[in-house]
């Protein structure tokens, strides 16, 4: 018999998914239930809000770096 696992399906572009994978890895794999493909994954429902917050913070930093191209970027390479 197949198994059913409760969760939230996230469909997003690959760049967003890459960030989610990194957040999951850095937190000791506390978010992702199943990595399905380049644009799709399932995460734990109780962790979704927290994941979105962390994602938002990272996206904000990325956007700030893009805007401040004149100043030296903090992360070379």
């Amino acid at each position, binding site marked *: 018999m197949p198994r059913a696992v409760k969760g939230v399906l996230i*469909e997003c572009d690959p760049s967003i998914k890459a960030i989610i994978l990194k957040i999951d890895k850095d937190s000791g794999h506390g978010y992702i239930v*199943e990595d399905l493909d380049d644009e799709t994954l399932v995460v734990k429902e109780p962790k979704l809000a927290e994941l*979105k917050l962390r994602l938002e913070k990272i996206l904000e930093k990325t956007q700030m770096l893009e805007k401040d191209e004149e100043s030296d970027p903090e992360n070379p390479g």
Partner: protein
Amino acid sequence: VVDQIRLWQIEGERMKTTTGFLFKDFHSTQEFEEVAKYAEELGVLKWKKSARRCMFVTRHEQIADWLKRRASAQQQQPKKAAA
């Protein structure tokens, strides 16, 4: 408050979320396809990938019942299943 508004901006523009159930570990491709067809007929199938025998559905109760009925039907007719 600003943070909350931005959260909603990510969702919709760059990501879409759906609460439900991931079905996996299907016994065979045939079993997977049958369940996917049933889920689609019920209107609960959200995503599937045949190559991985994985699907995501918005409701699981009817599928679980269907799988149980299917399993018990197969137990009653083992010869037919083996043929």
